[in-house]
């Protein structure tokens, strides 16, 4: 039974064992340490190989544990900022409501993703949602363009939607995130992209293990006017008096731009938190996996070691008993 198990273990590591003919040509000190041939022609993996593998797995475990700690500390730093910024978009939603199903001609999907990898599946989720929105808003005379923040979404979207991408922004988190930087970014986007509706796709941070993909919609002033006139959700927007400025349109324009920068700021912070949280859990499960692998390898190592000792003993004893006759 034990030998059957050993044989199975040996077969699992089979690709690493060099084929028989080559070892015959190798110099003698090396050959015995690489392969032992026991009874029934079973080939064991050598202890040296298993030891090397154990060393590398242990190093990987250390690295992933360190990455988890780093992600945890970064998360702590940015989480307070994100939670403080949550009050920023609420007044806009209270005033203008939330119309993700508004039917518009020019849609712009702003996908927020991370620059670095190893953070679980959050970037893929954002990209899938963006593609879903693209599909949802496709139709005659309608077009959807992408504005991409972050390397990971760029890598995924550039493969099949290259012609739809308007703007790509990377290295957002080189300096700590602040409102000035994000408002400059928002300004750039608004200047370069024509839009009727901006849909910002990001992962909202609920807790260290839960990130909800969310889409926030910012409508251009013309669409806001249109929706207000047609009644429905924005119907009572007309009841609001607009102070100052020459025209109502001017104030609404400023309002839309301000709304976009506020919503972007919150979205970018939430996505950064989600990224760190996802990285934490990814690295945590990776270190746990490495630990399991290490346990398995230790067992294999011990078994191999004991098997070679047993084989030696058998040889000696059978040799001795043969001599006795």
């Amino acid at each position, binding site marked *: 039974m034990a030998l059957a198990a050993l044989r199975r273990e040996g077969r699992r590591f089979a690709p690493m064992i060099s084929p028989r003919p080559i070892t015959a040509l190798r110099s003698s000190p090396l050959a015995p340490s690489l392969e032992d041939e026991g009874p029934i022609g079973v080939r064991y993996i050598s202890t040296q190989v298993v030891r090397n593998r154990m060393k590398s797995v242990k190093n990987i475990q250390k690295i992933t544990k360190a990455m988890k700690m780093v992600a945890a500390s970064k998360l702590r730093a940015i989480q307070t900022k994100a939670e403080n910024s949550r009050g920023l978009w609420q007044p806009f939603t209270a005033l203008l409501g939330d119309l993700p199903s508004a039917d518009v001609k020019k849609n712009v999907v702003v996908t927020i993703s991370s620059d670095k990898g190893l953070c679980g599946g959050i970037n893929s989720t954002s990209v*899938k949602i963006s593609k879903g929105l693209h599909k*949802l808003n496709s139709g005659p005379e309608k077009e959807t363009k992408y504005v991409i923040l972050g390397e990971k979404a760029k890598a995924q979207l550039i493969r099949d939607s290259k012609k739809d991408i308007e703007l790509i922004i990377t290295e957002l988190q080189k300096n700590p995130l602040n409102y000035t930087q994000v408002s400059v970014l928002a300004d750039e986007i608004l200047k370069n992209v024509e839009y009727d509706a901006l849909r910002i796709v990001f992962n909202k941070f609920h807790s260290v293990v839960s990130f909800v993909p969310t889409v926030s919609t910012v409508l251009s002033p013309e669409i806001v006017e249109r929706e207000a006139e047609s009644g429905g959700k924005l119907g009572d927007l007309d009841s609001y008096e607009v102070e*100052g400025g020459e025209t109502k349109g001017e104030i609404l324009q400023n309002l839309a731009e301000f709304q976009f920068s506020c919503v972007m700021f919150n979205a970018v912070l939430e996505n950064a938190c989600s990224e760190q949280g996802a990285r934490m859990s990814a690295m945590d499960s990776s270190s746990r996996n490495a630990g399991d692998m290490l346990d398995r390898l230790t067992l294999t190592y011990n078994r191999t070691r004991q098997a070679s000792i047993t084989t030696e003993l058998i040889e000696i004893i059978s040799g001795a008993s043969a001599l006795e006759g």
Partner: protein
Amino acid sequence: MLGRASMLLPCRSILPARARPFSTDLPAAPSADATFTEAWTKVIPNMDPPKTPLSFMQPRPPTPSSIPSKLTVNFVLPYASELATKEVDMVIVPATTGQMGVLPGHVATIAELKPGVLSVHEGSEMTKYFVSSGFVFIHANSFADIIAVEAVPLDRLDVNLVQKGLAEFTSKLSSATTDLEKAEAQIGIDVHSALNSALTG
């Protein structure tokens, strides 16, 4: 046998992203959400539709029939919520058309703010902030949302730096060549003179 047992290690997976059910989830509000979720499930049946901000917000109370006694103020900045649903008597906001006093029962208004002093009156106490710019929304249900980019309490302002800044921007305006430089210098002058009058007035 030993080998088989050790090979059947439990496989641990990352917890799937589960949305915490929010107590603020309104049954009435998501009428737009309902059309969105329906349209989504029709086109993309494999994925859950993404959440929208409406499901994360506390619902606002409807317009009461009589004028309430207090004004509920939300004063938010990008970095913090200075006042969150605080009940006050009156706020005076520096709108572009001048200082605007807001009392409970004020007509619904959207106003843009210019650099100036915002004062919050609660009973006998008054808190003053210098606001750089932003917007104020006054809703019919006596809720006021003030969103500012920067706001500092007046006692944190340094008179000397204000004077220096004013002088600097005035000289910049006189030496400005392009329209952009002129506009920037003008903005600097506006803000600094508002700061000046806030500190002296």
